[in-house]
């Protein structure tokens, strides 16, 4: 019996002995970016699915097991994962990915944060001290993050420096061209008034010039009451909006309610890679986001 147990354990352990850089990505967009920058050199595990609210993820045993063998953790930061990541990292017993070590990468550190609260009070709902963490909705944010992430990959795996540098150059080139293309396409969206279900799009609004006139949550993270939605509907008569926008992982109840009564389309943004069937990679994610917003205008 003992022999069988040992053999079983050995099998489990050996199954993991692979030379590639093990990367634990908190959200699919960072897994996709790491994939762009590290190609086959990285063995990437994505902790959350595209249809999961990244604020509310369980610190599952599988996550702890995957974090145990990771060399690099790529996450949003800015407290987005504060409800689960600290437990995963602590329980993993992996000193390489503890906060502050080179294996702990927070994308939010490399971009200019929006909506940094001037007062921290839970009466304001689920606010994040570091600013709004949904940075992945502005394509321009990926440029500084990619550069920083590439540097981190080189630091952890110096043997493949040239490879990572090449990957970065190619990515930056393609991404700049793509941004120019997206901005051209998105010109009709400039100044378009929209409603958002959750305060999750300030970076997108800032980038494409969409004008957010209302939110469907009375306070960030709080479910709206019927009375609150009624107020929003009344306000819409004075400040009409063209569409109501939500992330793919969000339940459509309140969006659909407003959309029906205000006779405006409810638009779903993929929000991350895999959020919609079209958003198969980072490029397709923005293609699809802009296509859906433009479709909402018609």
């Amino acid at each position, binding site marked *: 019996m003992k022999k069988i147990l040992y053999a079983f354990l050995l099998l489990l352990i050996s199954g993991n002995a692979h030379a590639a850089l093990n990367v634990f990505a908190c959200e699919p967009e960072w897994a996709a970016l790491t994939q762009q920058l590290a190609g086959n050199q990285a063995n990437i595990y994505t902790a959350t699915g595209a249809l*999961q*609210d990244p604020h*509310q993820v369980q*610190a599952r045993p*599988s996550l702890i*097991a995957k974090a*145990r063998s990771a060399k690099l953790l790529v996450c949003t930061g800015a407290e987005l994962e504060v409800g689960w990541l600290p437990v995963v990292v*602590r329980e993993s*017993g*992996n000193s390489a990915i503890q906060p502050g070590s080179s294996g702990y990468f927070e994308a939010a550190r490399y971009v200019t944060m929006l909506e940094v609260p001037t007062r921290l009070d839970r009466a304001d709902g689920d606010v994040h001290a570091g600013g709004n963490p949904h940075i992945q909705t502005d394509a321009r944010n990926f440029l500084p993050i990619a550069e920083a992430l590439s540097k981190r990959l080189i630091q952890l795996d110096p043997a493949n420096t040239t490879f990572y540098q090449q990957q970065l150059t190619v990515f930056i080139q393609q991404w700049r061209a793509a941004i120019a293309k997206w901005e051209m396409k998105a010109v009709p969206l400039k100044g378009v008034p929209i409603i958002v279900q959750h305060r999750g799009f300030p970076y997108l609004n800032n980038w494409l010039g969409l004008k957010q006139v209302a939110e469907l949550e009375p306070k960030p993270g709080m479910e709206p009451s019927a009375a609150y939605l009624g107020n929003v509907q009344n306000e819409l008569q004075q400040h009409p909006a063209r569409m109501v926008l939500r992330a793919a992982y969000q339940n459509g109840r309140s969006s659909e309610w407003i959309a029906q009564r205000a006779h405006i389309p409810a638009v779903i943004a993929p929000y991350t890679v895999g959020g919609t069937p079209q958003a198969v990679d980072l490029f397709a994610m923005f293609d699809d986001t802009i296509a859906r917003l433009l479709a909402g205008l018609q």
Partner: protein
Amino acid sequence: MFKYTALCAALFAPLSAHATIDEDLRAMREQIQQMEQRLQQAESAAQQTGRLATSSEGSFNPAIALILSGTYGQFQQDPAIPATGFSMNPNNTGYLRSFSLQESELSIAANIDPQFRGIATISLAPEGGISVENGYVQSTGLGNGLNLKFGRYFSGLGYLNEQHAHAWDFVDQPLVYRTLWDNQLGEDGAQLKWLAPADMFIELGGEIGRGRGFPGSDRQNKNGAGSGVLFAHLGDDIGIEHSWRAGLSLHQTKRENAASDNVPDLHAALVSNRFSGDSHTAGVDFVWKYSPNGNFRERYLKLQGEYFRRNESGTLIYDTAGANTSSSYAVTQSGWYLQSVYQFRPAWRTGLRYDRLDPGTPAVGAANVGNVISNYAFSPSRLTWMTDYNPSEFTRIRLQLAHDNSRQGLADNQLLLQYIMSLGAHGAHQY
């Protein structure tokens, strides 16, 4: 109209033309200054965010959290009556009749240095008095899947044992936890855990301690360790919607002069007894969680169950205040619960739990056969239903109804209303 002509005249006058250019220049200068100011502001803001974005727990200040909780209870029977066959076990229900404040929990946590993290949970009892519920140090830099914890902590055995009261899915603990672990086994000692480097979650752990919490009887002025725990956990995902964890635990301690009062005997009296001997407990636990698309914000279903079996053998002194008769005593007590919680929409959950205990049939030495009850022919059980409303992750308001059949002939219908509020820093929750 007059204004208009005056303006026209002024425009055509060469002197005032000079003035306009000057004004324009001044306006431009002002604009440039404003732009510079804005740029500076943006720069300093960017620097600030750079600092803020590092997730540290409040720049050297520890994370401080306070849990406030209270209940309203209505029972047909006195909550102080223990479950049949478990009068030598603890019966700390944690609630009272009418309105009552529950324990307020103040917890403070911070990294100590790159190697250690410290956590203290101070419990403020409603009747007054302060106790240290948890006060431990945890290693953060050992690596190799090793985690060392020392100080006062909740033992890693079972599934519910490590969870703090504010995270429980019901107002109270299952009967098996209440009777076999005094709700939660708290230990003064050290715990070492090792996580196997595998794709699947395989964790092995061991603890040694002084035997502080029940069934331990503390280390009465003796060197060495008074209790030991071994546990193993397995866990994984099945697709993105299912996850599970299963565990096996062993606990052993030596009980010395463990006193119990108000124990019913065969002469229909209540006496005080004392037990000394070995205590061995084994337990299995499992939890399974399901959520459509793995999105726990919307809906989830959680199913969990645990079973513990304890074997104790040693010497019992019957009626220490009177007869003071000593004899051998051995008993196997066990219990289990099965519970399920369903979040049917954001902010709303409901749950059902079934509890059962087996007091066992004690083998009593000849001297006490006529004194000590050894056959109860009754298995305590309880059925509990709860629903709770969580308007934010810091607020929980709960209604719990239970049909308690844990005391023979004293079936009880129980109603509990509870609030749990958390103020300040809110740490991540365990699985």
